[in-house]
């Protein structure tokens, strides 16, 4: 058999072997065996020294062709085997995507603070500054400056925790009206502020009373701020918190620090005004108190009521949250049962 035939035979056998290999390692062994320095092709080429000078290049290039053909076949088979291996691996790695995710805990803001933050953002957008004030107040700011002198019957409306004769737990956020009015420089423009915070009343805790709760005070003072502006502002709040379809209605009321004073009702969000248990079959729900700032409050804080005037309102985040989310017991806000708190995780607005 001539060299050429030997090479043909090697090629035939090699290609046959390569095709039938399933194992990458075996394929590698075949590569080494066929194409290595001790492989049969190299062996055959060693016999070239016996050939004529004319024949050598022909056989040489033929041998190279065969080498390349075999190498190509191996390459092809590697890819085939790789694809098979990948397929196997993917099958092996398949997981149950319906199993629950690894728990990553995120915290839930307290629902009252969600309500407060939301209102703060609303008012900041309307050009209001957010102002803090002390929780331990003086009788002077909590009462006297709010036009509630000693022995005023309105002091009975707000049972007070006194610390000393002059110091007390603030019963409302209204003292921040006086504090802000005193500090404000009206030559630099109007005063628009809200002041959220904790307030305290001497009450026995039960489902509807809490000795600690929250208020947001609002105050707008300028040369021409009207009661119609108050109505419009409260409409914005009502719609923002309780829904675009809400209507409001004002009823006369009494606060010593506003005149005129009003209570504000919103049309019932549960029944739309037809009457239901939420609104006690009236179609309306009382949500806040407001009014035009009493001249005595302005004068007391050094602001001329003949020139400046405006409105104030006080709203209760606790009440808002209770109404909006159907919470029946105000104590839930302060007992901090995690199951209660965490249910508000989804609620951002």
């Amino acid at each position, binding site marked *: 058999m001539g060299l050429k035939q030997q090479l043909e035979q090697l090629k035939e056998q090699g290609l046959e072997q390569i095709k039938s290999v399933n194992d990458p390692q075996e394929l590698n062994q075949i590569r080494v065996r066929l194409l290595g320095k001790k492989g049969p092709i190299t062996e055959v080429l060693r016999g070239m020294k016996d050939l004529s000078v004319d024949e050598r290049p022909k056989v040489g290039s033929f041998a190279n062709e065969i080498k390349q053909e075999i190498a190509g076949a191996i390459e092809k088979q590697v890819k085939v085997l790789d694809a098979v291996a990948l397929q196997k691996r993917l099958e092996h790695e398949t997981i149950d995507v319906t199993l629950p995710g690894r728990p990553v805990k995120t*915290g839930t803001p307290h629902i009252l603070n969600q309500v407060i933050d939301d209102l703060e953002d609303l008012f900041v957008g309307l050009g209001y500054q957010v102002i803090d004030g002390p929780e331990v107040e003086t009788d002077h700011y909590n009462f006297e400056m709010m036009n509630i002198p000693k022995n005023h019957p309105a002091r009975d409306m707000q049972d007070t925790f006194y610390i000393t004769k002059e110091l007390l737990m603030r019963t409302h956020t209204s003292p921040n009206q006086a504090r802000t009015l005193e500090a404000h420089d009206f030559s630099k423009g109007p005063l628009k502020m809200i002041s959220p915070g904790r307030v305290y009343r001497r009450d026995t805790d039960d489902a509807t009373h809490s000795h600690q709760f929250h208020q947001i005070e609002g105050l707008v003072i300028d040369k021409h701020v009207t009661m119609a502006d108050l109505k419009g502002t409260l409409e914005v709040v009502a719609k923002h918190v309780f829904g675009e379809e809400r209507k409001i209605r004002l009823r006369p*009321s*009494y606060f010593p620090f506003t005149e*005129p004073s009003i209570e504000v009702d919103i049309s019932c969000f549960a029944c739309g005004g037809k009457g239901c248990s939420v609104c006690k079959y009236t179609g309306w729900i009382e949500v806040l108190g407001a009014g035009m700032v009493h*001249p005595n409050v302005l004068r007391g804080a050094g602001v001329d009521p003949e020139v400046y005037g405006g409105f104030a309102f006080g709203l209760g985040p606790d009440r808002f949250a209770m109404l909006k989310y159907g919470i029946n017991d105000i104590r839930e806000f302060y007992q*901090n049962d995690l199951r209660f708190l965490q249910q508000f995780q989804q609620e951002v607005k």
Partner: protein
Amino acid sequence: MKISYQWLNSFVNLQEIDPQKLADQVSLTGIEVAGVIAPDEGLKKIVVGHILSTQPHPDSDHLTLCQVDIGEDEPVQIVCGAPNVATDQYVIVALPNSRISGNVKIKRGKMRGQASEGMICSLQEIGFSDSVVPKEFQNGIYVFPKAESAGQPVFPLLGMDDRMIDFDITPNRADTLGMHGAAWEVGAMLHERPQFPEVEVSETGQPTGDLLKVSVSEKNLVPQYLLKVVQNVEIKPSPLWLQIRLWNNGIRPINNVVDVTNFVLLEYGQPLHAFDYDKLTTHEILVRRAQQEEPMVTLDGQTRTLTSEDLVITDGQNPVAIAGVMGGLSSEITADTHNVVLESAVFDGTSIRKTAQHHNLHTEASTRFEKGIDQGSVTEALQRAVQLLEKLANGESSQSILVGNQELPEEKQILMDPKRVNHVLGTEISVAEMGTILDDLGFGYELKAEKYSVTVPLRRWDIFIEADLIEEIARLHGYDKLPSTLPVGIQTVGGFNKRQLLIREVKQSLLANGLDEVISYALVKENEAAAFTYDPTENIELDWPMTQDHAVLRQNLISGLLNDLQYNLARKQSNVAIFEQGNIFQKVNDTDQPTEVPTVAVLWAGNVTDSNWIAKDRAVDFYDLKGVLTNLLKTLGLADRVTYVADQTLPELHPGRSAKLLIDSQTLGFIGEVHPSLQHDRQLPPTYVLQLNLQLILDQKQASLVSQSAAKYPAVERDLALIVDHQVTNSDISDLIKSNGGKYLSDVQIFDVFTGEVIGLKKKSLAYRLHFQNPAATLTDDQVTQAMDKIQTALQDQIDAQIR
């Protein structure tokens, strides 16, 4: 006060408006209405019966068989168990299939074998409160005072078809605590002028001054004190129409004299008092302050020990009434009374309030004096009572009024500028409409130079200034007609201050780390207030707490968080990771407001993760909490400035597992495990807490952040393992490494801590990975080795480290 629709209608034309509708309208224009009460609600088929004959029940010693005319062709038999049943009475009969109080259905039936066609009722059985039923009918059936036609419904006869509108007044509108005031209010709303009965007295008796002398020693507390005597009164029950007015308002009819004083109270809002003239020791009335510990028995039979703050009426010797609060038993009107002294007065509200509070004695009279009465009708109310006693008790009234004091305030004149009204309200109400509203209110006015000069009657003592008049115009014009606008004018920029922004940032970080926000009570138990506090101040205590659980202001937030933890543990919630942001309170001195320090605190107990299909459970430890803190401090740009010092000063913390946090030398707060004995006492799992003073953070000058590009040149890492004495801390070592590592040392990470016998007792092994980085060039091996050598030498020399 409950305003009777029928009574009101006798003063003002109510235009046949449905009572509920009227109430709704009143709510929108003036006075909040708590509800409309229908006394006959739920009752039906209850009629007048005439008892034609009675005979004892054959098989019972307390039942009576009554033949009763109920307006049918034939009388019916009704078995009655009341002791006061008798022939010829006109009574209340609940027919078969009727409904009486409590939604009870009455059926035709037999009682001990005798047929009973219904039931003869007491007032209580048709819904009267026991407290208003006249004494004579309290333990039996009600008997009408005169013949009524049998078979007609009882409701109109007893005033039960009336509708009571419950006025829930604010403190400024006590003028509506009488029917006259209510009539003015409702009349103004309906544009109807109220009409009141003429008050005329005959005065057929002696001059009052011949019967009585009076002096008032505290004239400033008693601006008006008027007396009159009605002689030879016949004490008897009041007519039914008057009794109805009283019981529909929750007042029990007693006798004609007492009832008249109560009736006038309801009519005018003016408290009156009647004394038995013949029971007064002397007839020289003196109004004075009581002596300290002077005793007196009030009408309710209670012995009161008076104080020198109380104002009393005396008969020259002894107190016979606590002024404006309650009369005395000794001069009570009884069936034997012949001559009556009537008192109509004004007492200082503050003084009355103190007395009512001190004796816990709040009456119809004291409430009205506290809230204020119409000082313009004190005389008329007295005369009205006299008029009624002349008519209803055949009394002879004394001539003229005996005056102890009479100082009437002046009617207020207030200037109201219509332009100003519209300026404040944002309306365009016409000058004429404002005039109409003033008219409807019964206010006098004159229009001068385009301004109204308004005269306010004394009954509206809540009106002082123009703003008060603006409110009257606004509410009667109607708030529903108010336009809806937003403030215009110079634009303002809204926003938060630094403190609010910091608080929001802090919360954001803690929430992102999986902590739930809580809000606890700022008022805590005495022993909780100053726990977990480095330098507690004296406690800030409430003067008069509601409960000992909330009596003292907190100086720390952890106590509240521990309560929250316990609350949750008791409800089987064992993984508790919570934080609170709020103020703590530090006493400054006895007079100034305390310092309120914005603070944040975290509590973590239970498992970081519960075991699940993919991971085992793991309990929280110190380093979990420290991780949260590190993230927070990084957010605030303070991670490098805060140092942790092992600390044992807080007795509530584990002495070996707590650290004081410092910024420079100032205390930022603490982190640590709650002391095991405290955990044991309160049955808590291992619990970790931290608290930070946010004010201190606010006070720090924040270095502004300047960005750096990511390094272009490769970093070099070297590991360093060492064995040291067990008391040497990580912080000692990393400080040494950092201070000796040269300028290219960019980071030091601890990656292993080991203790065990292999390395010897009281020793520990630690391993660090050091990162070197030159931002400007590639580091050479020499540079790094040099730095490492210096570090190792320092460690060996200074903490006796054994480098491995």
